[in-house]
């Protein structure tokens, strides 16, 4: 028996390796450092993320596959790497003070965040369904644990358990779908080969469709699309706020990366079939998310429903299934990362010690007490609502124009109507902050440097890419050239 070891270049998965080593290093240091001694894991994590970001930029422009065609090396993956790294880095920054208040500033937290990031990268770059599944699991397991980080807290426990059980079910659906495709294609799971192989045997068509349906359920769960969204509010509310931010942003981005890669690359031939399903999902997701968000009084729950609604907008880009749609997906996810993490940063700041103030009425009078904080929150709310000149507006603009270009006029109209609905609850926060006097003295807001930096950076970013989207547009447009079928 002889084996040929496929040739490979470690540099093509450089960011993964760096992050893995960083996470392991954090774990070892955490285990070996004597009790009570503070090790700055967050700095270590940030350093690792920074190196990974550099490596990603170094990979920019290269194309092809590596590791026996298991890994894509392309700008689509690189773009998403940067989104994940950005999301993870901002999460690390907003976590430190927050966890310290809870006495949970542990090495594991940072290691898990970074492991999850590695999983996301696998999802974005996997060229084989099994790779994508592995990435999904690496990410999910880490996030399950993160959701239950506050072991003594019942809600956190509930969140973790719920997420774990439903998440494993959805993973099972996904895997089952892959199995169908494996059968239907006659034994391959390479995304490149799938289109040809799937079309080869018409008798297999039902199997293909069933597989596609199962994949939609699996990915739909991860992106929190209705009707697979039911875990979202509870989990987002129960999980630690910093983890919620991470889940809402990076996990969603990773799921969309894989979702888009698989569907745009492997199934463009049966676009008509899955398009209508996604159409319905998109409309349901947007509408449910926005309508439910209106009646929320807990800011985390409101942002949870808002993130469902945003998943709906992003699904719209999937429905459009053209170059512009794929581009808008990339742009919007980056914009969403910035604005949502910024909003969560403000939530942590206003929540003060240990999430004491999560009710939206706690934001009354913030405009007078902390004008800068209120201004940035207002900016994030405007961005989430899609008001120019923020990044949210440009992203929605791209998505809607993609839908219109693909001929889904009604979908675009429903999207715009939904944006209008969403303005209501986003602006309510702004109105509370500026027009209502504070109901009670909630005590001082502690501006830790890292949190302040996050809010400032994201606010600047939301404005910067909102006012000058041209450069990102070109980057993203180049990145989605890998989908020839669109």
């Amino acid at each position: 028996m002889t084996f040929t070891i496929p040739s490979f270049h470690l540099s093509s998965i450089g960011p993964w390796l760096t992050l893995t080593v960083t996470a392991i290093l954090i774990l070892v240091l955490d285990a070996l450092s004597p009790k009570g001694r503070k090790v700055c894991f967050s700095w270590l994590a940030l350093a690792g993320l920074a190196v990974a970001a550099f490596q990603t930029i170094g990979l920019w422009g290269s194309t092809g596959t590596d590791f026996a065609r298991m890994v894509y090396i392309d700008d689509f993956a690189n773009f998403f790497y940067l989104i994940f790294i950005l999301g993870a880095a901002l999460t690390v920054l907003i976590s430190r003070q927050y966890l310290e208040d809870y006495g949970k500033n542990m090495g594991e937290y940072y290691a898990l965040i970074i492991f999850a990031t590695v999983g996301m990268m696998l999802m974005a770059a996997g060229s084989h369904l099994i790779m994508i599944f592995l990435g999904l699991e690496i990410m999910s397991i880490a996030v399950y644990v993160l959701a239950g980080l506050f072991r003594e807290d019942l809600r956190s426990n509930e969140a973790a358990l719920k997420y774990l059980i439903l998440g494993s079910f959805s993973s099972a659906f996904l895997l089952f779908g892959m199995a169908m495709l494996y059968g239907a294609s006659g034994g391959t799971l390479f995304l490149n080969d799938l289109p040809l192989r799937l079309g080869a045997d018409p008798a297999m068509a039902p199997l293909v469709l069933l597989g596609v349906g199962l994949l939609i359920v699996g990915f739909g769960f991860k992106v929190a699309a209705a009707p697979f969204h039911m875990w979202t509010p509870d989990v987002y509310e129960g999980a630690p706020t910093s983890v919620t931010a991470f889940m809402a942003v990076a996990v969603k981005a990773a799921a969309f990366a894989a979702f888009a890669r698989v569907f745009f690359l492997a199934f463009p031939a049966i676009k008509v079939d899955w398009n209508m399903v996604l159409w319905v999902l998109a409309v349901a997701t947007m509408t449910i998310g926005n309508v439910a968000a209106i009646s929320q009084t807990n800011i985390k729950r409101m942002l949870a429903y808002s993130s469902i609604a945003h998943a709906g907008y992003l699904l719209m880009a999937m429905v459009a299934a053209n170059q512009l749609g794929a581009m808008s997906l990339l742009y919007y996810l980056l914009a969403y990362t910035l604005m949502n993490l910024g909003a969560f940063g403000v939530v942590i700041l206003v929540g003060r010690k240990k999430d004491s103030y999560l009710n939206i009425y706690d934001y009354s009078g913030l405009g007078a007490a902390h004008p800068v904080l209120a201004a940035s929150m207002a900016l994030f709310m405007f961005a989430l609502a899609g008001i120019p000149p923020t990044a949210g507006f440009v992203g929605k603009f791209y998505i809607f124009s993609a839908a219109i270009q693909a001929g889904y006029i009604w979908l675009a109209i429903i999207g715009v109507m939904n944006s209008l609905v969403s303005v209501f609850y986003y602006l309510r926060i702004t109105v509370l902050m500026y027009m209502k006097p504070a109901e009670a003295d909630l005590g001082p807001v502690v501006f830790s440097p890292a949190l302040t930096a996050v809010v400032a950076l994201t606010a600047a970013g939301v404005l910067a890419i909102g006012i000058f989207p041209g450069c990102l547009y070109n980057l993203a447009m180049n990145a989605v050239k890998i989908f020839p079928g669109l």
Partner: protein
Amino acid sequence: MVFSDPILLGCLLTVFLPLSAFALIMIFTRDNPKLSLAISLVAATIPLIIAWTFFFKLGGRAPIIYNFDWMVSDLVKVPFGFLLDPTSLVMFVIVATISWLVQVYSIGYMAGDPGFGRYYADLSLFALAMLTLVISSGLLQLYIAWELVGLASYLLIGFWYEKFSASEAGKKAFVVTRFGDIGFFMGLVFLVIFYGSLDIATVNSAAVANSMPPWLITTSGLLIFCGVMGKSAQFPLHVWLPDAMEGPTPVSALLHSATMVAAGVFLMTRIFPFFAASATTMTVILAISTLTLILSSTIALAATDIKQVWAYSTVSQLGFMAMGLAAAALASGTLFAGYYHLTTHAAFKALLFLCSGVFIHHFGTNDFFTMATQGGRKLVIPMACITIAALALAGIFPFAGFFSKELILTALAHLDNKLWLVLGLFGAFLTAYYSFRVIFVMLFPKSPEAYSKVPGHIAHVEDEAHGHGAHGHADDAHGHGHDEHHGVPWVMIFPLLVLASFTLILGFCQDYLEKLLLGASHPHAMNYFLLVAAVGCALSGIALAWLDWGRKDAKCVGFISRFPALQTFFIQKWYMDHFWRWFLNRFIYGIFSKWFTYNDRRVVDGGVDAVAFSTVGSGRLLSFIQTAFLQYNLLFMVVVLAGVGIYLMMGR
């Protein structure tokens, strides 16, 4: 790339400095007057330097154009860019200079106002918007800046928002100009749909090369002129400008006389070839602007509030500029006459307002009869400056206004129909009369009783002078009683001197400016008849003013009181406010509002109720589904999966 190109860097700085000043002040330093002032001044000084540097360095060169794709998608391209050609450079300098001077002047004028920081933030916002408007390369960007300018104007007119009339005036300005802007926007839409580009250079060259259908030029030209009518206060949309005088006087000087209201005329010069390509449009413009000139000059005859006089004078001079442009276009002339008048007008009108501001600040009233009786002429420098400015406004040699008015009248003389020229001369006569009515009253005050017969003038009650009664400072912190005659601060005097010297110099820069703007100066054949007629009109206006108001035994009633009907007509401002009130009541409130109220009650409220009920209902439904029981969640997922599967299978 940005840093290697100093011109581009300059343009970007010009836009971003005031923007960041606005943001910084609004967010951080609103409550710190000194810091706010410092930020705002820095953000005004650097663009000033940039403007003058550009003016001298780039003046004679070919236009410099920067275009970026601000927002691109497959469907639309929204360009963003700068166009630096002589037309924009001159306006750039005007705006940067006057806005800097006004910021300096306001240090004295606004001292102690509780909204000091906010005031400077708004001024920075205005600077941002106006400078962007001036140097933008595309009409869409110009339109955005145009609306931002409107916003700044709204904020500044209603600056003392505690005062009802001020906030009402702000609203009025915003709404009335919006009527015009609808037209402007429609014009742009027409251009985009039927021509496909909003780039200024492209549109102009297309109009020159006849590559645009004539109907399109006429239609969108007229629609865009609606915007000009709103912003530059042309009949019948002029009604907002006099009310806008509720704002602080430096604001009136900057926005409502020198720069912002001139934006309309600037827009006409900006796309002059495009406008000029349609004779119909130009004839309409000529008629409207002439009507505006006569209307506002006659109203100014009867006004007693010094700012109202200058406000109507601004309206009339804007009409005069538009006349010059329209006449030049019809007689295939150049934009120089109108543009030159814009330049000189900016200098002397800002001067008039700033001088009036000194008086208002000092005496706490807007009524120039009261100022006169209380010894206004003792403030020597402002008095001298206001006289210089009035001489320029009346068109007396050698002040700036003389030269520019002469050019416009020449342009009018080129028209076949001499009626326009006659009306223009009549306007010049009225202008000279009403401006010297103010000057003579101020210079040669009579006893207060002498003015009691002046309609509109309220005999001054002593305690009204305390605080800024008519002027509207809510705070007592800096109310100056007239017994407290302190000197005028130098920060308020300095801008006056600068502007006065401009008023003196600008007239002799005609050849230089013409060469700059047109590339070559055309020797003007002296039309002696016209010269004599113009100066004659101006002098006779001044003489009449002297007879009515200046000489020792003047009757102080004005020649217009011989025609009581006309006088009432003018005092009532040609009943234009009444017309709009009637129009609003009859049509907007009577018809649209009724329908909208009905619609609101039935459709919208009903819809909201429906949404509310259905939210409650769906909330119940959701809470039924949204249980803590994972089993149901899973079951639901499976059911949906089954649905998706069945759908997909059936689809085949």
